[in-house]
């Protein structure tokens, strides 16, 4: 299977005015994502998973310093010039975010927000872009797409907005979609529908998906392979079946302990205190006891 995204020893630091040498948000992450798979990255908030996702798109704020190598289709992204990055984003690789309401321009008709992704990359007429946008709206499940093309985002429900965001991100059939917590802001019932939509689009178009989540339920539902992040480090990588059957790392076992099979999908993981180093986490028994006490 060919590799579409390859990370080699990726690190991210944020230079803040106060601290001289801040702790890295992402530290020495290496992984390879294969064409056509859904690769999940799971971890609690602050584990660096979102920072990693934004680093792949080079969408980090100006004070972030990225080290190591990020290659998409064998092209190095780190240090790529602005115009090359721009023409890559939204075409070869695209991204969707946690909050669909915040992701859309509230003053623009939703249809135009899909069409502009097309026109930013291809010399099509406004009419052609509009026709394609309406088709996309239909494909992601917006009923009566042509009539709703001109409506502004606040006239849609949260789930519909995320469908529109997905249509805008996938308008040019990108080979890789980075999805950063795409269902977290949605109602539990809507979450499953949106995940099914992502899975369907992957099957129809062969899109590779890098899915960032804190939710093991989401992972078990659609991911082929999973990486577990904690404290900026990638602890282990495995197929979803292997990880659920036999988690290798004590932290992963702690994650499962904190997220019993019966827990409703979408429930937030209890946060494991950051002051516990990964090393100390090797006392898995101790950790289980602590979480048991916290929950009990």
């Amino acid at each position, binding site marked *: 299977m060919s590799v579409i995204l390859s990370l080699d020893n990726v690190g991210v630091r944020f230079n803040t005015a106060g601290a001289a040498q801040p702790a890295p948000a992402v530290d020495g992450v290496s992984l390879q994502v294969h064409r056509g798979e859904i690769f999940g990255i799971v971890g609690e908030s602050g584990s660096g998973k979102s920072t990693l996702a934004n680093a792949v*798109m080079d*969408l980090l704020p100006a004070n972030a310093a990225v080290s190591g190598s990020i290659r998409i289709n064998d092209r190095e992204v780190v240090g790529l010039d*602005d115009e090359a990055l*721009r*023409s*890559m*984003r*939204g*075409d070869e690789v*695209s*991204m*969707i*975010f946690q*909050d669909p*309401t*915040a*992701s*859309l*321009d*509230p*003053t*623009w008709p939703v249809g135009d927000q899909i069409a*502009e*992704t097309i026109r*930013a*990359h291809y010399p099509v007429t406004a009419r052609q872009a509009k026709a394609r946008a309406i088709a996309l709206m239909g494909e992601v499940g917006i009923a009566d797409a042509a009539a709703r093309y001109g409506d*502004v*985002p*606040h006239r849609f429900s949260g789930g519909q907005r995320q469908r529109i*965001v997905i249509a*805008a*991100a996938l*308008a040019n059939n990108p080979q890789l979609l980075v999805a950063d917590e795409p269902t977290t802001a949605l109602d539990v019932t809507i979450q499953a529908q949106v995940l099914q939509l992502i899975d369907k689009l992957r099957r129809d178009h062969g899109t590779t998906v890098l899915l960032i989540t804190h939710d093991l339920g989401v992972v078990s539902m659609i991911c082929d392979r999973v990486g577990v992040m904690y404290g900026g480090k990638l602890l282990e990588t495995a197929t979803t079946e292997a990880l659920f059957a036999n988690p290798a790392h004590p932290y992963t076992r702690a994650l499962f302990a904190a997220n019993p099979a019966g827990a409703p999908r979408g429930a937030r993981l209890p946060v494991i205190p950051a002051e516990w180093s990964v090393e100390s986490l090797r006392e898995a028994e101790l950790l289980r006891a602590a979480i048991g006490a916290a929950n009990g």
Partner: protein
Amino acid sequence: MSRQLGFILRRLLLTIPMLFVMSVVVFLIIRLVPGDPVRTMLGFRATDANVAELRHRLGLDQSLLDQYLGWAGALLRGDLGKDIVSHAPLAQLLAQRLPVTFELTGLSMLLAVLVGVPLGVRAATGGRWIKRLTEAFVIFGISVPDFWLGIMLVLIFAGTLVILPPSGYVPFATDPVGNLRYMVLPVLTLATGEAAYILRTTRGAVGSVMNRPFITFLRAKGIGTRRIIFGHALRNAGPSIVTVIGIQVGVLLGGAIIIETMFALPGVGRLVVTGINQRNYPTVQVGILAIATIFIVVSLITDLVVAWLDPRVADGGGT
């Protein structure tokens, strides 16, 4: 669409009480003058017959309600009364004076927007130097009173460089180039402070939009920086900028009173000031009525434009 129509109707209806209150205040100007306004107007040498005649002509011998109804009715028919010094019909006087005030405030606002909005966008999205330069301009524009700025501009351009006339006016129709030469200094004077306010508002509004998540999504879609700034950030900042422009029109109309007097421009503001000094109350009333009406109409237009720019306003608030 019907919700938008409803909003427009509601906003139009709100204008009626505003116009009513304003007209009552203007109506009362002459009635609230301490002592006998007619004697004050005519001076000490007036005979009792003169006083009674003018009092009758102004309708001051009727009940207050009748007086208001008569006055407001005449206004609505376009009868503004007569100037008590020159005896010219005030409607005619106003028709001569209004274009001057419109030209002064219109050109000033145009210049202020053309300078303030692009610089505000650059200040919000540009580098450190543009940020510092614009900040200095904002502090300068807000702290320097416009009349003193006008004096300094006259000193430089009419006194030292001698390239522009210090004051005066010719109508545009008579001599377009001369008219614009007379307008340069007053317009620069009024526009500087306005540009500073508009710059500050644009900088703040565009800056806060640029921090919103949808800007990141636009970048993720591969939209170019210029299009993000001008197509999306400025579009979203539009309602705040238009609101401030509307408020600043009021400041501009107030400033025009001073600037017209200072540069000897025969506008409505100067009409009011001369009228006050001559105790020429009917003229003062008409001048104030005209300026206040312009302000109310501009506020109305501002609100309608904001509703058009931000569909959520007409739909009844946020998401």
